[in-house]
């Protein structure tokens, strides 16, 4: 056996030289599909199929306890919904809740981020404290606020009592129900807005601030010329996310008011739950869900239209 033979690798391990480019070419062609494959499979199984099935379900009369025993009713669920005042009440409650929650959460969150971006003693501790509500479990948040808002023993009535205001039914009076739910939601979600905007603020190069200072710009001019253009895309994204999350928020609303008082907080998601589990009408619940999906899609479409317009303006 010659030396050459003894050190040569086995023939099978050495692909023919002329095959290498074609294998490489093939790998280049299929590798993107392999990388995105798991995500696509996940989306199909857990997103697309349930959405399609939900839409199918909305054209049937299906009881909860017989999900495979539905009968087709065409557009009846939709026509009944669209002719029902309760549906419009529910839609109105959803829009009001979402608008109020998003406006307050984004305004307070962004404002807090601007304040906490300044240098001051104890900044880290203050940041940690303000972030704390985001870490509290949602169910615990709802229970704590239900005690705070309790009419006979709640802390809030103790406080307003000192101010000379009588006992208020924060969770049982239709005048206050939505406000109480919005306040709780803002307390819970505002820290996320603050963290995201703060991260964006910290990515602004300090040279830009120095340049505006040298140009003699005041605080407001600096904000308009440097800060806002940098954080605006982040604020827009976080507003979109807050809007979609608010449209589909359930736990806080259901645990605090159950959709009351007098249906003032009966948002679409709470209504879906009522129809599906209390009334056991899966078809009608799916129809409400489908209309809620349209609402979320509308918000997303508006967002992307605004983004496109901004991009065109910048170009």
């Amino acid at each position, binding site marked *: 056996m010659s030396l050459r033979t003894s050190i040569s690798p086995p023939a099978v391990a050495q692909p023919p030289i002329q095959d290498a480019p074609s294998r490489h070419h093939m790998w280049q062609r299929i590798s993107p599909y392999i990388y995105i494959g798991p995500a696509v499979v996940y989306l199909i199984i857990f997103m697309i199929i349930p959405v399609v099935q939900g839409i199918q379900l909305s054209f049937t009369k299906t*009881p*909860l*306890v*017989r*999900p495979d*025993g539905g009968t087709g009713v065409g557009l009846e669920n939709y026509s009944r919904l669209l002719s*029902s005042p*309760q549906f419009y009440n529910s839609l109105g409650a959803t829009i009001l809740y979402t608008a109020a929650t998003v406006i307050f959460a984004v305004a307070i969150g962004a404002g807090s981020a601007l304040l906490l971006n300044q240098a001051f003693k104890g900044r880290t501790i203050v940041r940690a404290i303000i972030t704390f509500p985001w870490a509290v479990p949602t169910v615990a948040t709802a229970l704590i606020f239900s005690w705070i*808002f*309790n*009419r*006979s*023993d*709640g802390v809030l009535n103790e406080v307003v009592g000192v101010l000379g205001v009588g006992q208020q*039914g*924060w*969770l*049982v*009076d*239709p005048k206050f129900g939505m406000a109480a739910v919005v306040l709780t939601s803002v307390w819970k979600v505002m820290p996320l807005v603050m963290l995201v905007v703060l991260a964006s603020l910290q990515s602004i190069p300090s040279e830009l601030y120095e340049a505006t200072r040298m140009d003699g710009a005041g605080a407001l001019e600096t904000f308009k010329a440097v800060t806002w253009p940098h954080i605006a895309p982040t604020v827009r994204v976080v507003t979109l996310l807050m809007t979609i999350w608010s449209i589909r928020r359930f736990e806080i609303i259901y*645990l*605090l*008011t*159950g*959709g*009351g*008082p*007098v*249906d003032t907080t009966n948002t679409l998601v709470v209504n879906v739950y*009522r129809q599906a*589990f*209390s*009334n*056991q*009408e899966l078809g009608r619940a799916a129809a409400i869900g489908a209309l809620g999906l349209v609402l979320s899609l509308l918000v997303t479409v508006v967002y992307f239209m605004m983004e496109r317009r901004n991009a065109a303006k910048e170009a």
Partner: protein
Amino acid sequence: MIDRRTFLGAAAASMLLAGCGATPGIDPNRAASAGGTLKFGSWQWLEPGRGEAMWKAIQAYQKVNPSAVLAQSTTPFLSFADKLNTELGGKGGPDVFVVQDVNFYPLADAGILAPLTSVISSHKGTPFNHTNESGLVNGVQYGITWERLNWNFFWNRKILDKAGVTPPTNVAELISAAGQIRSATGLDGFGVRHQMTEFDSWFMDFDVWTYGHGGSWSDGSRPTIDSAENIAGVEAFGEIYRSGAMPIGDDASTMRTKFREGRLGMMIDVSSTVAGILRSSKALTSADIGFADRIPLPKPSAHQEIVLAVNGYGKNKNLAVDFVGWVGSDEGQAALRAAMGPSTLATDVPLAPDYAAANPWAKAFIDLASESRSPLIRGYEAQTKAIMREVMTQVERYLVDGGDAAKALATAQTQVTQLLG
């Protein structure tokens, strides 16, 4: 010599017989020897003290049928019905379970429960009482009474004595007594559920007021939401709600805690509430509980019935049916009696003499079962919750906004009529 055809025939016959032995018909006596694990679904296993006592009581079945193993399937009350319905909808769920009659009826009506005809036909000993009619749906027995909880009026004697109040016997006296307690002691006078966050229980509680005035939600063929009797019941509730002597905003759990701690004077609630309060209270003993023979309203009141049923999709259906038969037997009822306390059971098994002597209020609660009424709406049993959702929304509107009870119930009548198509 056995030829091939004879052998195959004998083998097929043996297999058929073996198959029959493995899945017997619904015959409790035969099923008892089959054995296996029975998953028993209930929220009650989580009830402190009472759940453990119930679980211990039904272990006696394993002595009758040593090859059976009982296993708990536990879900908190608030999500129990939702989870059970979802599981059964997916052809899963526990083998045997307890469920409130308003949730039981739609399950039976949908045909997904196992019939218990053999339990009734083979029953011996103390006969099943009238409460078991709740388990009869479309002429078929799908459930037997696990327990019937009757609503009654009770109070803390110490608080009433301190406030110089005599126990009320009608709504006007109740409002007055609650106000006196508030003014004399600073404590809450009277507590009862009153808000939609507790809808699943409140709508049943609320029947106390409408039934108590002779009302019904239907006449069997059409809804009668806006009847004069129902309006009277809603107005009576409105008066006590607005009297200022009720802890508005408190949920049932908070009010029970207040009563247990001696911070609430009077309540209308079910029998198990009193038993639970006494089991965990340091401030109260049974002697401190004042009780009425009936709720201070003109007509008989409501009850909440918990039905024992068998999952039609269960793997051990026959064993489950056998277990239900045992629960209804004298032995099973005697075992459960001690654990259940002041509830009405499937048969008229009496309270243990020492328990009855120590808890004189218990018999008053049990006796109410003879004329109490179900929350199920006659003719619309499966839609009870959907109908009551509309009704209670309008009742809530009347309570918080004021106005006219008749108008509120007229609106509910229109909405329910639309709902039912």
